[in-house]
């Protein structure tokens, strides 16, 4: 937990704030230089631009520009049948595609009123938590890279390869998973997949502990991150922060607990919260969430119920291939579903899941047609990034870069 006395001293934060206020008072100094950070700066990972007004190394003002990879998800979604939107969601937060897939599927299931069997729900939970781990892995290790410690990144990247192995065994792809179907999973967990998950649960804690050992209590890293890019809980709420970034400020809002979906209520886990909302707290919260995710996976893996891996909903869920080849009825359903002519009811639903980055919401308006009438994504990155200016002003250039990595703003999700 981030709130225990292990966190760095509060006076360091106070020092940082005093310092910042002091420097901002000198803002009348007209000798500012303009520095164009991005859109191809190495630390912007994805692509966004920041035009910084600098006084020496201190950032006085920042004007963010986004939209460099705007891909018109929402417009495309209005032109595609429901099941073809899953590949689109893959490409939003590509660090944790399964969460996006599942979130979207759950939204449509909510619209269609399908009940999902327990086994499918548990499989989903395992996959979503694996995705969360891989998301946090990237975020925290990239934080290390941006602060100059490259090696830890490669250590945890090896573990991410193992997560990808599991994905591959479940859905046949590594990154853009297109995992699951409306109404469940597309196939059951194979014995190999189960074996891989078991292996992962055994091996990963050691690697993660090692990674933590390399960075967490290293004073250089602490100095670099404590007090950097801090935001208060009030401002964070005003900016609609969710997820780890909100929890780092001390607000224990987590969709998995507040609105449990996919039987998250069955599992025991804690929500780590920070205190100061700075980069170090975000890092700690993510670290701890990885441990909690492991706990959830372990529980789901141990208690994986027997049963079907998909809902019994022939109107929406593709019949098994073997039946398609043989039975006429299945073939008709098959054609209808593939052509996108499922009888979606009129209505509107909002469903949100706890994405790797925060509350990932899907607002779906259906007019009964074969495509959504309107599908709006509540993209947490879009929300975080607008607070970025406020978080970096008064800090140094190096702070701005660490703040960006610790916010885990992913361009694909930001620009939609």
């Amino acid at each position, binding site marked *: 937990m981030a709130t225990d006395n292990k966190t760095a001293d509060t006076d360091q934060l106070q020092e940082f704030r005093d310092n910042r206020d002091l420097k901002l008072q000198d803002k009348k100094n007209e000798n500012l230089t303009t520095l164009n950070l991005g*859109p191809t700066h*190495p630390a912007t990972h994805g692509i966004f631009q920041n035009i910084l007004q600098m006084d020496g190394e201190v950032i006085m003002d920042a004007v963010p520009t986004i939209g*460099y990879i705007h*891909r018109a998800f929402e417009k495309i979604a209005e032109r595609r049948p429901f099941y073809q939107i899953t590949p689109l969601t893959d*490409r939003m937060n*590509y660090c944790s595609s399964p969460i996006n897939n599942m979130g979207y599927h759950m939204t449509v299931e909510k619209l269609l009123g399908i009940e999902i069997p327990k086994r499918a729900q548990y499989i989903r939970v395992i996959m979503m938590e694996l995705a969360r781990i891989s998301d946090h892995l990237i975020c925290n290790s990239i934080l290390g890279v941006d602060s100059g410690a490259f090696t830890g990144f490669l250590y945890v990247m*090896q573990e991410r390869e193992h997560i990808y192995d599991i994905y591959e065994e479940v859905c046949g792809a*590594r990154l*853009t998973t297109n995992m699951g179907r409306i109404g469940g999973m597309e196939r059951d967990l194979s014995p190999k997949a189960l074996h891989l998950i078991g292996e992962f649960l055994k091996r990963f804690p050691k690697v993660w502990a090692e990674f933590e050992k390399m960075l967490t209590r290293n004073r250089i890293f602490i100095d670099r991150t404590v007090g950097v890019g801090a935001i208060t809980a009030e401002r964070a709420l005003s900016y609609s922060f969710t997820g780890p970034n909100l929890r780092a400020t001390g607000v224990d809002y987590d969709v998995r607990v507040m609105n449990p979906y996919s039987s998250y209520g069955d599992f025991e886990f804690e929500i780590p919260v920070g205190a100061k909302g700075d980069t170090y707290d975000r890092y700690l919260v993510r670290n701890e969430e990885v441990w909690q995710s492991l706990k959830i996976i372990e529980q789901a893996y141990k208690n994986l119920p027997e049963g079907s891996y998909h809902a019994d909903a022939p109107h929406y869920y593709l019949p098994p291939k073997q039946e398609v080849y043989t039975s006429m009825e299945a073939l008709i359903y098959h054609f209808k579903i593939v052509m996108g002519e499922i009888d979606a009811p009129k209505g509107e639903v909002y469903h949100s899941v706890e994405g790797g980055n925060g509350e990932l919401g899907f607002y779906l308006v259906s007019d009964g047609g074969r495509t959504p009438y309107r599908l709006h994504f509540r993209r947490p990155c879009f929300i975080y990034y607008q607070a970025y200016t406020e978080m970096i002003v008064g800090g140094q250039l190096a702070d701005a870069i660490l703040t960006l990595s610790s916010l885990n703003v992913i361009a694909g999700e930001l620009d939609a």
Partner: protein
Amino acid sequence: MSDLNKDINMAEAPEGHSGAGFFATSFEKVIGLARANSLWPLPFATSCCGIEFMATMGATYDISRFGSERPSFSPRQADILLVMGTIAKKMGPVVKQVYEQMAEPRWVVAVGACATSGGIFDSYSVLQGIDRVVPVDVYVPGCPPRPEQILDGLMRVQDLAKNESLRRRNSPEYQALLASYNIK
């Protein structure tokens, strides 16, 4: 150490006449080999494919085996521009600018469906392939390509580099190609 290397194809020595202490080859080939084994990439990663490039840099695939592990984020120092991910229309001019800033010899690899053709994003805001703005040497399909495929693309560039004339950038064909893209 030695067992690590047992199954590895060395960069082949250039063809030449080898005799006792005598090894003649055309100078260009040597330089071509040098270039091929020292391709510093500029990872222009905008989205998903960038994550797979991270995996390519990672321990499992290890792009450094090809001498390409030094990512040069400064275009001046890079040899290949790896465009990975969706290039929106807003981004197009930036890609072109980066390409213009690169020093010769330069190669461009379009990695992934989005960079090569726009892929799934056939929408008003996405450039349908970066060969609209810069000349592309190698296309790598996939969405995203596996790291193996990215390495494949890199090896294609190595083949190009090995067999290319030193004076490529002075050739009229090359000038015409650049002119067709409106690059000075």
